[in-house]
């Protein structure tokens, strides 16, 4: 049977019969794989980008020197290995002392990303592959400025002296914690012993850094998991930098969304093309039955033929998809600056599988209906058109088809919730849309009577082909829905990212300002042109009781809560609600209020503090108590000074305190701070520019990647809509031939086609805009965790874009038909 079916397939190919179908499926597969290929590469690149912030693909962090067995196993698995050890200690240069973050690194550090160095503090920098040699130290600009040290000079660490050979300006592996923010001194790990600073009981953070293939990393992860002792923790970038994790997660979910919607588009296009294919085979089926072929044999024959077709389309589509993403990434690689890694082969397999799955999923149900075509059709054509009840087998095949598409959706989404929402959403949209379109088509006949000949022909045509029109409008709606949905979610994402670190966000923190220095520091800042720098008092206090109950760490099961319960807080006084805070419950201070607390909502939840609770603090032996007046939500990533707990102004007048301030300093004015440190030697200036730049750089690149995938899916959506319109081409050619034979002018026919496409576009746009509004809202809330405000423009885009796009695509698909001689068109099959 296989040779015969292949022969049939080859013949149909030569006849051009299946070229359109093959092309439609190949296009669908190409769109699917190119998004998958591209997404795969962007995902890998994003992962690596993030890994530069960890300096590795995977790390084990520990508070003690790690068993060398871990490094040994990693090397055995073919992973590259390095390590670092960091601690806070005093650095000395001449007479100046500085509490610095000392880090000793092994050769190979960093395994991901790189270091940048400059010849002098605050000078232009360049990337380097070198590391400090034995007896050498690299200082960052701040450490050099605060120690008054120069390149070529010396720095003392514990018992050892080091020669300063470089100023280090960039180091990926810098978490957001305080140790990482301290001025940096980088030395070789082999020199750590000489300093004598690392001893029993020293607080040292050790990190074993690993990089290599995903497989080897996964194996290592599994191997090491159960072997980790107390104080040892596996870290990948997700653990290391939660703020980056959020960005990457959302970007990956967006890629997933684009891929899922492409599956839906591909399914819609395949369905349209196959429906037509099977309809055209009714005659053939009846004839072959007439010639004596059994039902089983014919179904088998068509099944083989379609499987072969699916495989061919899968192969063609996957190849096409691979080339498309190649061209695309080459064109846009420069803009993206992500240094995309080679695509994996998985998307190619996906393409092949999708080709066969899509064809069989959508061909089986109508194929099984072929079994119902009476052989008598060879004598009476009216027998055996679509309609009537479906055989049980066909219903089952529909389910199998749906399951296959659902499988593809789940695979592509990489996120169950996303898959469920989009899959369920699309099904719901289809059900509502079918009903809506049927209802909207109903009054067409009456409406058409009052119209001129052209539009009347167009509208009546739509009305007559009711079910066919519904299907076509549905396919077009899905195409538009994908486009609108991707637009809406992309808008939400970009808005959120743009607002993440606003321009002019503070990039310097100054701590340890003594009460008597408040006025001089303010004067200094003002005379150096730094405005909007508010000095906040900072009082160290320990929470000892809530509502009279003593606060004990062991009462809290949650790690974070235990940690909060045992540490000292920084309290402050606030006159007004800060601009990046939002009042969630209670009221802001009454006029003249002198006691009470405003509490950040996250800490309140962790420590079970409620509005109105009485809190008692111990401030260096002095008691401080009051009731919770309100709860606040704080945007911590705004980079402004914020406090968990604050009192009204004056409530802590008698308490010991220091002051803190933050301000934005343009990069070119960085050197000014050397003057501040010189004028107020006790102040500590913390520079978060690098942290902010990393975050901003990452958001920018991720935004570009998202935009690119969006544009790409957009193109695919348009192509698929074009394919849907092409699927009725032969019938339309015959219709046009008939109309022209009956005397319709080209003008009338153009008007007929235009009104048909415009109405189709209107129907599709209506359905798509409604569905996109609802789904975007659900996705923003449930999957992307983004603020979403309804966008009324979507209706304009949906309706206007629907009509415009479908008019354009329809014109492209039919313009040459009007030029065909009517006789040729009538003979076309």
């Amino acid at each position, binding site marked *: 049977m296989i040779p015969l079916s292949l022969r049939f397939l080859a013949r149909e190919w030569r006849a051009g019969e299946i070229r359109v179908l093959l092309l439609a499926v190949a296009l669908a597969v190409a769109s699917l794989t190119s998004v998958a290929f591209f997404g795969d590469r962007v995902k890998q690149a994003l992962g690596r980008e993030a890994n530069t912030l960890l300096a590795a693909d995977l790390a084990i962090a520990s508070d003690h020197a790690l068993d060398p067995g871990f490094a040994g196993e990693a090397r055995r698995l073919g992973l590259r290995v390095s390590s670092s050890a960091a601690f806070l200690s005093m650095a000395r240069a001449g007479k100046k002392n500085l509490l610095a973050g000392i880090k000793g690194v092994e050769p190979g550090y960093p395994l991901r990303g790189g270091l940048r160095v400059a010849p002098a503090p605050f000078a232009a920098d360049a990337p380097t592959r070198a590391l400090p040699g034995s007896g050498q130290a690299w200082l960052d600009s701040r450490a050099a400025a605060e120690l008054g040290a120069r390149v070529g000079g010396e720095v003392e660490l514990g018992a050892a002296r080091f020669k300063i050979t470089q100023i280090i300006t960039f180091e990926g592996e810098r978490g957001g914690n305080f140790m990482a923010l301290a001025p940096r001194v980088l030395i070789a790990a082999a020199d750590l012993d000489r300093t004598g600073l690392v001893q029993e009981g020293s607080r040292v953070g050790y990190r074993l850094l690993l990089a290599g293939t995903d497989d080897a990393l996964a194996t290592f992860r599994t191997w090491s998991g159960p072997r980790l002792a107390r104080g040892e923790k596996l870290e990948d970038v997700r653990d290391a930098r939660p703020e980056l994790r959020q960005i990457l997660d959302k970007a990956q979910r967006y890629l997933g969304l684009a891929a899922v919607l492409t599956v839906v588009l591909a399914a819609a296009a395949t369905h349209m093309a196959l429906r037509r294919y099977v309809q055209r085979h009714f005659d053939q089926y009846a*004839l072959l039955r*007439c010639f*004596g072929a*059994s039902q089983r044999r014919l179904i088998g024959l068509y099944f083989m033929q379609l499987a072969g077709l699916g495989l061919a389309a899968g192969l063609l589509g996957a190849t096409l998809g691979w080339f498309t993403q190649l061209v695309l990434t080459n064109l846009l690689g420069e803009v993206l600056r992500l240094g995309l890694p080679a695509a994996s082969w998985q998307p190619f397999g996906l393409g092949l599988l999708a080709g066969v799955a899509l064809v069989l999923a959508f061909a089986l149900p109508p194929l099984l209906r072929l079994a119902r075509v009476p052989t008598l059709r060879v004598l009476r054509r009216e027998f055996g058109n679509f309609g009537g009840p479906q055989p049980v087998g066909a219903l089952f095949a529909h389910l199998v088809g749906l399951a296959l598409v659902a499988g593809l959706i789940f695979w592509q989404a990489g996120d169950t919730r996303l898959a469920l929402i989009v899959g369920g959403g699309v099904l719901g949209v289809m059900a509502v849309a079918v009903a809506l379109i049927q209802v909207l088509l109903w009054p067409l006949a009456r409406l058409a009577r009052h119209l001129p000949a052209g539009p009347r022909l167009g509208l009546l045509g739509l009305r007559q082909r009711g079910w066919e029109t519904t299907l076509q409008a549905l396919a077009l709606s899905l195409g538009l829905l994908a486009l609108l949905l991707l637009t809406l979610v992309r808008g939400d994402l970009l808005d959120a990212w743009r607002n993440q670190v606003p321009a002019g966000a503070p990039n310097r923190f100054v701590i340890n300002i003594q009460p008597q220095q408040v006025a001089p520091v303010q004067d200094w800042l003002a005379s150096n042109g730094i405005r909007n720098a508010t000095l906040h008092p900072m009082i160290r206090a320990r929470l000892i009781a809530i509502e009279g109950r003593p606060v004990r760490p062991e009462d809290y099961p949650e790690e974070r809560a235990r940690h909060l319960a045992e540490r000292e807080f920084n309290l402050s006084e606030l006159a007004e609600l800060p601009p990046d805070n939002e009042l969630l419950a209670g009221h802001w201070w009454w006029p003249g209020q002198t006691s009470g607390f405003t509490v950040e909502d996250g800490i309140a939840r962790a420590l079970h503090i409620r509005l109105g609770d009485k809190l008692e603090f111990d401030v260096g032996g002095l008691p401080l108590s009051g009731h919770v007046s309100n709860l606040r939500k704080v945007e911590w990533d705004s980079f402004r000074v914020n406090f968990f707990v604050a009192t009204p102004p004056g409530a802590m007048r008698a308490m010991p305190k220091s002051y803190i301030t933050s301000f934005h300093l343009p990069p070119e004015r960085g050197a000014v701070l050397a003057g501040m440190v010189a004028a107020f030697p006790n102040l500590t200036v913390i520079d978060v520019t690098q942290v902010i730049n990393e975050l901003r750089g990452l958001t920018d690149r991720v935004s570009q990647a998202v935009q690119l995938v969006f544009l790409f899916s957009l193109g695919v959506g348009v192509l698929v809509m074009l394919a849907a319109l092409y699927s009725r081409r032969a019938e339309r050619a015959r219709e046009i031939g008939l109309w022209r034979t009956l005397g319709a002018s080209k003008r009338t026919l153009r008007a007929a086609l235009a009104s048909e496409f415009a109405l189709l576009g209107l129907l599709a746009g209506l359905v798509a805009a409604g569905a996109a509004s609802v789904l975007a809202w659900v996705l923003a809330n449930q999957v992307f965790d983004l603020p979403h405000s309804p966008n009324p423009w979507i209706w304009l885009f949906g309706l206007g874009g629907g009509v415009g796009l479908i008019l354009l695509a329809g014109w492209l698909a039919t313009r040459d038909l009007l030029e065909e001689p009517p006789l040729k068109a009538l003979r076309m*099959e």
Partner: protein
Amino acid sequence: MGEEALHILADVSFSVYPGESMAIIGSSGSGKSTLLGLIAGLDVPSAGRVLLDGENLFDLDEDGRAALRGRGMGFVFQSFQLLTGLTALENVMLPLELAGQTNAAEVARAHLERVGLSGRVKHRPAQLSGGEQQRVALARAFAVAPRILLADEPTGNLDAHTGAQIIDLMFELNRAQGASLVVVTHDPALAARCRRQLRLDGGRLVANP
């Protein structure tokens, strides 16, 4: 139903002998095509039998009847029923391939030559005239060496001149292969060429010579 049952065919009984030609004539709606469909086993009657070599077609299931058609029946239709995507040669090869014949192309080519279309084997139906299309259909019908050829208005879509040529060709082939021929037709000229004529009126046999 409740109302009087509608009989499309009633009390129709006749025999066709090997090598014999027979025309089924009657006005539109008289039941001619329905009768042909039943003879071919394409449709199932509510009552009655069609015996082929003593075997009742309707004792077989649909697949069994299909196999029987494959072994012994040829068809010619009013609307030619050529597959538009295939060439003349491929159209003729189709039933041969289904029967598993290995030399399908050779046999098909020979039959196309017999109907005078050796120069048009690579042409598609749309590139052939109506008469030529019906010749291809004849070549296809006779290629399987049928014992009975069933023709449904074979000249209905052709002009008088071309129709006459097709009739000549059909009888010539029929004589050469010794098949029985059953033709449904309106065409008195065609009916006259057949040895027997059955006339149907309102689903009843009114003349069975």
